[in-house]
């Protein structure tokens, strides 16, 4: 099958979802109102609450939610053939991710811009807040381990990316200095930064840095993982203006450039998809498609992490409630496009079916490294760039996405550790909390794999997916409770919620068995902890929804009436 046909069909489904389904959601279900006084206007303080142009806000929202995860997930999941992954990404984006992201934004906007953590306290009940802390702690722990492994795999597989990846840190520091000390204007800085980054890519392509097989008694991959955690620990302690802010910014620009390059190359070279639509002959040891597909692809189909972004920052900057449709739903569309592009690359960037099968020789083989190598050949055919340079560009891009996610997540987890410390009555200082975060991430990266090679992260990828879905389920329960209280149609939220919960619990049970058979005790324990949290989410959500059904309905038009009186008084 020609990949352009698939791209067109996929984009048509996703865009139809935006045009039709998001309109249904915003008119009938969430009933977004242009006259509703949003938190950004009500509490405008110039800091957190700032009314922001919807295109700019979409820019941050999209770059905060999209990262390496929509690349890694599909790149692993095409082992079952391209069709299941394609369907889950397109249908998931339309009915799950878009609905969830828009819903989280709406829920937060209607509650004075409060975050999902705080909403779970008031809508799920007293234990909701602790439940949220448990889920988010597990999620961030896995993000750190998994992304460290993704980056180290890429650095080993693509030694030409070493110079641009570490050089990008220097570029970011210089950009921070140029802006805050030398007062350069931003468009100039942006151009200089992007040019510097791409010069580093050219340089790295000429001078690959390959580590020896063992360094200080560690394998090259394990060495990179330790270096990465040291870096992430230090980076999270620096003032944000020095490193994280410019790094985020340049990565945001990169995301748009990368997405453009990727789609341009696919459209121009229009490669043929060599992978089977449905792989009936999966390698031995591959877990069943149901339920594992639905947790392997989390970002790109539905991801709880988006709810954190929606309710954490975006909801406080939304100028009009009706902008939520563009910012929330179209943000998910952008991420779906990234996942769709990845599916095309890892199924069409091969010469023959045999070559594809050789790469996907076992579950968790392939992944992001395949994305880089097969994407390299597509870029070569489409844009005429040499294959090694193309691979370097993609590897650098993927590492930068993963690294910003890791930077942010180490910092966020430090706050969570401090908060848990406070709950236990201990005040942890920043350094101690950071050390705890770094050590627990390292322990998981190394301890998860019985062979001790530091490759544990990829084994926990499906577990990361389940936790991410669990967080999404928590958000969806809050939205359902709100809709039930307002006596609005709630099935568009409840049905995906049930689907996600069933798949998550099912996947956890399947994995309990496989971890037990492998004798992987650390992951077995982790799996059981997540399972307990999942059962906890199910119970609390069911109780909260049942309670909401029995309560008197919330007057639905109160906000409208309020808006009217305001208009009268002001006019």
């Amino acid at each position, binding site marked *: 099958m020609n990949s352009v046909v698939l791209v067109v069909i996929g984009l048509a489904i996703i865009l139809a979802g935006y045009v039709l389904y998001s309109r249904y959601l915003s008119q009938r279900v969430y009933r977004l109102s242009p006259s509703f006084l949003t938190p950004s206007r009500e509490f405008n303080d*110039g*800091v*957190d609450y*700032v009314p*922001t*142009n919807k*295109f*700019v806000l979409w*820019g*941050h929202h999209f770059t*905060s939610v999209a990262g390496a995860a929509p690349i890694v997930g599909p790149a692993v999941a095409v082992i079952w053939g391209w069709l299941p992954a394609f369907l889950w990404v397109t249908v998931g984006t339309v009915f799950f991710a878009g609905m969830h992201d828009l819903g989280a934004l709406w829920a937060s906007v209607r509650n004075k811009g409060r975050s999902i953590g705080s909403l779970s306290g008031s809508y799920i009940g007293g234990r909701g807040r602790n439940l949220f802390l448990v889920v988010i702690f597990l999620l961030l722990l896995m993000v750190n381990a998994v992304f460290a492994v993704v980056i180290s795999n890429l650095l080993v597989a693509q030694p030409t990316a070493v110079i641009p990846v570490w050089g990008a840190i220097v570029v970011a520091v210089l950009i921070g200095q140029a*802006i805050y000390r030398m007062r350069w*204007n*931003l*468009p100039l800085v*942006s151009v200089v930064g992007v040019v510097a980054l791409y010069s580093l890519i050219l340089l790295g392509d000429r001078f690959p840095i390959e580590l020896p097989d063992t360094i200080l008694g560690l394998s090259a991959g394990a060495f990179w993982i330790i270096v990465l955690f040291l870096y992430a620990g230090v980076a999270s302690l620096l*003032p*944000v*203006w020095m490193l*994280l*802010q410019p790094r*985020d*910014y340049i990565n*945001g620009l990169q995301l748009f450039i990368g997405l453009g390059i990727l789609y341009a190359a696919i459209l121009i070279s229009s490669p043929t998809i060599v992978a089977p639509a449905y792989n009936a002959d999966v390698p031995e040891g591959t877990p069943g498609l149901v339920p594992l597909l639905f947790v392997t692809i989390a970002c790109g189909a539905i991801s709880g992490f988006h709810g954190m972004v929606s309710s954490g*920052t975006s909801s406080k*900057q939304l100028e009009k409630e009706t902008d939520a449709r563009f910012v929330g739903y179209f943000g998910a569309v952008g991420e779906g496009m990234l996942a769709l592009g990845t599916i095309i690359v890892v199924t069409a960037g091969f010469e023959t079916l045999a070559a594809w099968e050789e790469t996907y020789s076992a579950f968790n083989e392939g992944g992001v490294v395949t994305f880089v190598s097969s994407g390299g050949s597509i870029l070569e055919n489409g844009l005429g760039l040499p294959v090694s340079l193309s691979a370097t560009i993609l590897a650098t891009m993927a590492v930068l996405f993963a690294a910003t996610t890791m930077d942010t997540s180490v910092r966020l987890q430090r706050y969570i550790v401090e908060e848990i410390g406070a709950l236990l009555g201990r005040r942890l200082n920043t350094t101690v909390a950071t050390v705890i975060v770094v050590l627990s991430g390292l322990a998981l990266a190394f301890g998860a794999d019985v062979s001790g090679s530091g490759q544990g992260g990829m084994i926990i990828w499906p577990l990361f997916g389940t936790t991410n879905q669990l967080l999404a389920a928590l958000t969806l329960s809050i939205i359902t409770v709100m809709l039930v209280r307002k006596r609005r149609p709630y099935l568009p939220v409840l049905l995906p919620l049930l689907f996600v919960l069933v798949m998550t619990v099912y996947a956890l049970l399947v994995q309990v068995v496989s971890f037990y058979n492998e004798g992987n005790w650390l992951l077995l324990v982790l799996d059981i902890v997540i399972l307990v949290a999942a059962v906890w989410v199910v119970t609390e959500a069911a109780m909260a929804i049942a309670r909401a059904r029995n309560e008197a309905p919330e007057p639905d038009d109160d906000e409208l009436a309020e808006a009217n009186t305001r208009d009268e008084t002001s006019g």
Partner: protein
Amino acid sequence: MRPPADGDGRAGLVALGRRVAAGLEEFYAAPYRRSFARARRDQDDLFMMMVLSEALGLPNPAGFYTMELLPVVYDNFHDWHRRMGMERSPLDDISCC
């Protein structure tokens, strides 16, 4: 649509450039505004403590100069002592609540 005259076109381009620059500016600054505000508040809190150090019983060699600053910091005093975990004003001669 009529083709814009040259002068119009240039003005339009400049305006577009300004809007793009403003958008980029927002894109750069917004995600970190909260961190900056918090850092500034922490610094102001430390400054407040230095200004009030004589009154709090800490010898301050620059006390003669910081005294002049007292009227400037009075406005923020109430928020400051509440942030520092004291429900009521810790100083007898400043009664804000």
